[in-house]
């Protein structure tokens, strides 16, 4: 039986899981932003990584078909996307029930009826929009959390209503979302994947009508290839799906890391420091890495590694977490936008406003003042992004500077504006020859390092 290895990274903001095979190749990733206890977070991330692993194994199994026939690739991606939608839908239904409970216990009389009616309308409106985003857009590949997806649409709908409704409706949302997010919802992979196949069957069956409504689909080559051919693709893939759905993904060993690692019910040798895991993961993906910068939810780490990926020294922020992921979350709240919108907005800047405050709370006050004097949101955000990268640069300097090659990891590495300033300032301070590595899976580096340690200690 093939062996797989699991790494769990329990961060301050998100929990991540990575499954690797015996060659250290990533075959499954899972991530959650639940603020529930770490046991729930671990389980959510682990299950998601296992679902993801089944799809990876399916793609590996059908590697030849995928390469020769683009419609196979498209079809599998679609199955995965619909599979994600079905998980999302189950949570949304659960959220709807929670909304009703919250409304019943929070409001009385006429206000209760008004709020209930509006919430019902919002759910009715956003449900189909999100359905289409998953089925016809590429929402599934965006790695967005349940909370982010729902809040974006929920906020938009509230914005269309009378201002007096803002507070009661937001109250319902805030009181309901966390408990749903913190619940461990178990899904039956096989059931969901076959349900996904049925939905896809309908989608392609009715594609002519959909295309008539949505011009952009007409130019999608892969989708056009599938249009007349989906039944064949479906039939030939079905048995493979059945195979991976029944497969026993045998986790031979696991290692936990991150802030919550001490709480994991793992033996001592299976608990590793996140410094070692991040460095090991980053080094595995980019073997020439000498310096790693990791910006996570509440800490920034500057790590120096040797040619084997072993840590020689590290520095972390102490006493203050300004400039980390949580800081960005707070700033996004101040601007009433989602975390994902921060970077793109900052990149629209025509100039950078100088932000003096490195303290999160003071920065918020400074932002309000700057908005009052008419500074543009994008320019302020550009200044903010620059300010936090300056903090990271100081930490890098304290740790011994940037050595070639430099790998940037952690959740904040997903932010394009942060990337822009990191590249700019690293090159400016340490020379244009420095190679900067960033991987789309940068947020998973700690969990990857953990999974790799799990494999090694199993072998030993």
């Amino acid at each position: 039986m093939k062996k797989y290895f699991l790494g769990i990274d329990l961060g301050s903001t998100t929990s991540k899981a990575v499954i690797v095979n015996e060659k250290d190749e990533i075959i499954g990733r899972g991530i959650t932003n639940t603020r529930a206890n770490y046991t729930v977070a671990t389980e959510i991330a682990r299950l998601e990584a296992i679902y993801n692993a089944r799809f990876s194994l399916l793609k590996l199994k059908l590697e030849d078909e995928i390469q020769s026939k683009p419609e196979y690739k498209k079809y599998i991606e679609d199955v995965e996307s619909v599979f994600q939608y079905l998980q999302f839908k189950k949570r949304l239904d659960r959220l709807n029930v929670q909304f009703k409970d919250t409304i019943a216990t929070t409001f009385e009389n006429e206000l209760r009826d008004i709020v209930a009616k509006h919430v019902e309308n919002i759910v009715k409106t956003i449900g189909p929009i999100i359905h289409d985003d998953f089925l016809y857009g590429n929402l599934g590949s965006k790695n967005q959390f349940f909370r982010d997806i729902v809040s974006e649409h929920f906020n938009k709908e509230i914005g269309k209503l009378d201002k007096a409704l803002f507070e009661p409706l937001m109250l319902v949302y805030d009181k309901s979302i966390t408990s749903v997010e913190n619940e461990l919802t178990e899904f039956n992979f096989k059931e969901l994947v076959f349900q996904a196949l049925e939905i896809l069957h309908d989608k392609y069956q009715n594609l002519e009508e959909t295309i008539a409504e949505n011009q952009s689909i007409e130019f999608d080559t892969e989708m056009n290839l599938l249009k007349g051919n989906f039944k064949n693709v479906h039939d030939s893939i079905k048995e493979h799906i059945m195979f991976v759905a029944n497969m026993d993904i045998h986790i031979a060993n696991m290692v936990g890391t991150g802030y919550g690692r001490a709480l994991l019910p793992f033996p001592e040798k299976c608990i590793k420091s996140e410094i070692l895991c991040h460095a090991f993961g980053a080094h595995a993906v980019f073997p020439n890495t000498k310096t790693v910068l990791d910006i996570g939810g509440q800490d920034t780490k500057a790590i120096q590694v040797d040619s084997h990926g072993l840590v020689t020294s590290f520095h972390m922020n102490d006493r203050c977490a300004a400039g980390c992921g949580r800081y960005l979350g707070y700033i996004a709240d101040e601007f009433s936008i989602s975390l994902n919108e921060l970077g793109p907005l900052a990149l629209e800047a025509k100039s950078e406003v100088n932000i003096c405050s490195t303290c999160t709370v003071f920065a918020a006050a400074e932002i309000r003042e700057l908005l009052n004097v008419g500074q543009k949101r994008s320019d302020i955000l550009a200044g903010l992004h620059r300010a936090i990268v300056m903090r990271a640069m100081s930490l890098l300097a304290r740790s011994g500077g940037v050595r070639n090659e430099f790998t940037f990891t952690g959740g904040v590495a997903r932010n394009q504006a942060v990337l822009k300033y990191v590249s700019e300032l690293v090159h400016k301070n340490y020379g244009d020859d420095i190679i900067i590595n960033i991987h789309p899976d940068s947020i998973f580096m700690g969990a990857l390092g953990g999974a790799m340690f799990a494999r090694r200690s199993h072998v030993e």
Partner: protein
Amino acid sequence: MSKDIAKEKSMIIQKEMISRLFKDLSTAKETGKKVVYTFVPGNISELILSFGMLPVYPEINALQSGMRKKSADFIRDAEKIGHSEDVCTYVKCDVGMMINGNIGPNGEKIPEPDLFLLSYTGCFTFMKWFETLKRLYPDVPVALLHTPYQENHKVTPEMTAYMVKQLKEEVIPKMEKVSGNKYDEEKLKACLRNSSKVEDYIMKIFDTTKNVPSPIDAYFAGVYYIGPINNGFRGSDEAVNYYHELYNEILERVNLGLGPITPEGVMEKERFRLVVEGPPNWTHFREFWKLFYDMGAVIVASSYTKVGGVYDMGFRVNPEKPLESLAEYCMNCYTNLNLEQRVELLSKCITDYKADGFLVNSIKSCNSFSAGQLMIMQQLERQLEIPVGFIESDLVDPRYFSYSNIKNRLESFFQMLDQRKMY
């Protein structure tokens, strides 16, 4: 680890010595003994003793207050009267203790000073500290002994002459006036003969960490070992007796192949050998120590145990040249060494004591230690290819000891050492 630890004879001797000193201090006004406030680095206590006066060390009082969980209130009171958050917490703790009646660690009042002996070695805060105390005790004279910094890597004859001149023209006349006794060089020489013996013992004691396992922890237990020489007993017969006893006890441990004693008994398995730079945190001293011994980490050398004198590079007082010796002793204190000399010294410790790693405990409010620590760390990392670590805490302000942050970094550091041992 065995839970029952018998108190070693040297521990009992030290306890008696310290308690006798505080007793003498608390009765100084009745016995007519004069009291000199001075600092540990560059403490020329032999001179004080030769005049029959008693020394008081404000840093020792502050760290004792920290260990006894009294520093938070003292610091708060000092801040109330205007000392900023950034001021050295030893100073604030000391000021707080004084404005609260100057009650010492034994619960008895520490007498007011008759003289401030301001010999400062590398720490400029000492000047401001005594300026502040001078405001509290405006009638007390100050004898200033300026110790030239070893900027150019060495002590020159001119530097020694400069200090001897100050001793002759500034310090000794003021001591004569305050004590009412004439300077007696023979008495000073006798004290220095004792110091010389003690310096030899101290070096031999800290050299026992060459053994594997190390019989002592040169940081957490080391701060107790340097207690008598830094706290009133430089140059005394009692100090010679104490260090003789301590050395023999440690040799016994070496013969038995025993590891260091911790608050929870003998550390049975030595996993990591470290050299530590920077003072310890005093408010959470036991918790801080436990983070190390629980991991099997023993400190084989520390710069902090050298604040009261550095003997590793061969310096010993010469009783035949008493004033020159006092001058050279002051100039050779750890915080008076330039940064390259500190790197050299630490590098020697890492090599001689076969350390696996180097750790800095950076103190938020201590400039004399913290300045240059990153440079020291990076140079040692580069020169010796040794794993290095960096943590932050404070001397006696409990607000700056973040247990979980320190634990998190230490765990990473120890795992890093472990990993390096495997490959």
